[in-house]
């Protein structure tokens, strides 16, 4: 899932304090699961902001909402409708950056502010702890590295590691960070495929990653007839 973390309240308050009517919109999928922007967090953020404005004697109306995913047009449509119907002046989205982008793209003249810092694609390694595991590079090589991604999990994204900064299985960047290459070697030992590592991984074509510009995925069969016709 996409993992994010709520921005500090001071920042959130700064975004919205010039607007009299603000809607905070949560996202019911990744942001919920990582406790950054689900319905409960929307309510907490709304409450905290109300308290902060109350202390300053500022009258602010804060509306709460949460949709299943802010990265789908149908779900976002309900947000757009509420914003228009209720004359909302600004939106604070507690979705990942995708949701913020997507909602902003659907609202012409109403600003959308990011309520969370989107961090990474990660997994829950223990309750309350999420760790990055994928960098979305567009050309997966996990079959070569025992299922452990050096691009995402090695601080330097080295394809033929480890580097000299690995010590006792930890990365020199932080004692909390496992050395991905140590993990890869241990794992491949267990799999009996350690010898595969004698083959050097060739320099990669990073155009599938961010380097090739914004990416898109198309399933022709799922496109609506109208859209397909328009594109010829």
């Amino acid at each position: 899932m996409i993992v994010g973390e709520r921005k500090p309240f001071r920042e959130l308050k700064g975004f919205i304090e010039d607007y009299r009517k603000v809607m905070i919109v949560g996202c019911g999928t990744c942001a919920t699961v990582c406790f950054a922007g689900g319905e409960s967090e929307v309510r907490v953020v709304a409450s905290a902001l109300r308290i902060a404005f109350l202390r300053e004697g500022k009258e602010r109306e804060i509306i709460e909402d949460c949709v299943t995913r802010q990265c789908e047009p149908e779900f976002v449509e309900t947000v757009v409708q509420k914003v228009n119907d209720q004359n909302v002046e600004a939106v604070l989205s507690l979705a990942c950056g995708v949701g913020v982008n997507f909602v902003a793209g659907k609202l012409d003249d109403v600003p959308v502010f990011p309520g969370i810092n989107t961090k990474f694609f990660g997994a829950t390694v223990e309750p309350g702890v999420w760790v990055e595991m994928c960098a979305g590079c567009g050309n997966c090589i996990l079959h070569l590295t025992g299922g452990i991604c050096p691009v995402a999990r090695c601080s330097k994204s080295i394809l033929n590691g480890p580097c000299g900064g690995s010590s006792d299985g930890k990365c020199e960047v932080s004692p909390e960070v496992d050395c991905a290459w140590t993990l890869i070697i241990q794992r491949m030992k267990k799999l009996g495929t350690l010898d595969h590592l004698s083959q050097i991984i060739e320099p990669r074509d990073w155009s599938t990653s961010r380097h090739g510009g914004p990416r898109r995925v198309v399933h022709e069969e799922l496109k609506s007839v109208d859209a397909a016709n328009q594109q010829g």
Partner: protein
Amino acid sequence: MAEASVTENVVAAAPCTAACPVQTDTRQYVEFITQGKYEEALELLLDANPFSSVCGRICHHPCEQQCRRSKVDAPVGLRQLKRFVVESTREYRLSRRKPIAPTRKERIAVIGSGPGGLTAAHDLARLGFKVVVYEKWHTPGGMLGTAIPRYRLPYEVLEEDIDDILSLGVELRTGCEIGRDLRIEDLRREGCKAILIATGLSESRTLGVPGIDSTGVLLAIPFLRTVRLGENPLLGDRVVVIGGGNVAIDVARCARRFGVEKVSLVSLESRQEMPAWEWEIEEAIQEGIEVQNSWGPRTVFAENGTVRGIELKRCTSVFDEAGRFSPRFDEGDVLTLLSDTIIIAIGQRSDLTCIEGSAVKVAGDRLEYDPETLATTETGIFACGEVVTGPGAAVEAVREGHRAAKAMLHYLDTGEFLRQPPSELLALGEMPLETAEKVRRRAPVIPELISPERRVRDFSEIERGFTEAEALAEAKRCLACTTGALVDEAKCAACLTCVRICPFGVATVERTAAMPQEQCLACGLCAAECPAAAIALKRFGTNQMRRELEGLLATGDEPKHLRPLIVSYCCLFEVTSRRLVRAEPSDVARTGVARVMVPCVARLSVLDMLTPFELGADGVVIISCMEGDCLYPTAEERLSSRVRKAKSILDEIGLGGERIDHWKTETSAEVSWSAFWEISKRKLRTLGG
């Protein structure tokens, strides 16, 4: 935002409710007790059962037999809790009495003033009918008024219920025997459009053994009536009671109270088969009554027509293979008991005098009737209770009375008969053993009976009721079945948080979370942590609490609140009286403390801790139960970490986390809470607004 809906998926009733013949919402009245809402509890009880005072004393409490707490330690003392409710609301109950002016022109006659007849009268009077109840004896209440001795059911207690019913405008004519003093056709002539026969089983059966006509052989019901009238039945030195049911036990225990040293009870059944309630038998034995099991009477010995003893024969089996009553005896195994008085308590029969001259048919010694419509063979005449069903418990008669009222209402409205097939509530399933093992054990509060030596001296009531502290402690033991966590599947993100934190291992997630109601103990920890706000509990909700707080903090016409203003969330389970339970806006204005009682404060979410500040409070004081006293494993730590999070949010927004205090009750709520509030107020004063 709307909270998750709590109405869906609840199909099963709490087993206590399902087991109750009148389907009393037991769990709810116990909850009302914990909330100090004794009057609401009384309303609930009386609505289900106008004989609530009686049932608080003598109900055979099938609710307790089915209580799911039995799997953990012992059932909740529901009968005693019911008694507590009626005993602590006497004045309120008197104040709520008011006659109901008849709105229907039809008159209804009820023959028999037992629990069945009077319940029907009660319901019909509330429906606007003019009801007249005829009672052949001079005291109302049927067997409750004549046969149940006052050490179990003081007369005043029965009167509480009966007077309540009569206060609706029900007319009671005692000493008026239908069939003798008046006939059914007279009732018709007086304008009765419907008649209910609820005459019960008012006569004792006797035995067909030689010598049974001797002087000194008495029948149970006349004997108990003599006792009821306060007369001395003149017993001999040795009394033998024949019978193994509850009436036999009552008779034997009454005999002891008239100073008879040697009272023997002879039962055809073995100890395990005896139809009397086990606790009654135990209490009788404690009082020195000798129980002779598996003997049947053979001959009564008499001298000059006066009883001298009884010869018994060994009963080898009471029931046949099909479970029918068909005693077999070993005539060679004989026991002789010397006695001066023999009291026959082998069962009752009906007195059908009332139907003389009517077209009501009889089947055996009972009335012929349709058990679904309660109609007899004469149109307009209905029957209910033991006269048609055979022996039953008081609360079952109440149920039949309710059914009779419904049947008669329908008949009077439509001229047709309403079918009321037997209906049972689906009870919540058993609690799995692995869940029961995780539930914290708590010994039941059982008021001791007065000592057997003291008991037999007179007819004083042998059991005392709960004190308020005891009732609150016992009510706390209720597992609140059927109020467990419910998931709004549309919101659930399947994040697994509930699975990870459920202290009872109940929650599961497949596509969405699920908490089987059979297992969930309604601690609410999952709801407090759910990031999707997808879990709701029937007894507690953030929105519900916010509304309560808004109500409490509304200043209205009152002057402004005292400052600092504190919202105090308190563990509902730590109070020993209701003084601290209920809060009014005026208290808040006066004291500066708005108390919100929570059934375990560990359910408080971070949002619950922030909301008071939104509503203008200066501080929040959370008071949980005593150290280590929480009902729910891990709850104390969970609460502490949520308090830390709420404090950090207050720090972040510049208000200061020190505005939230978390205390643990010391000794009792009454002793420690006000000190906590004082300490917090002092601190808040230094912090300023």
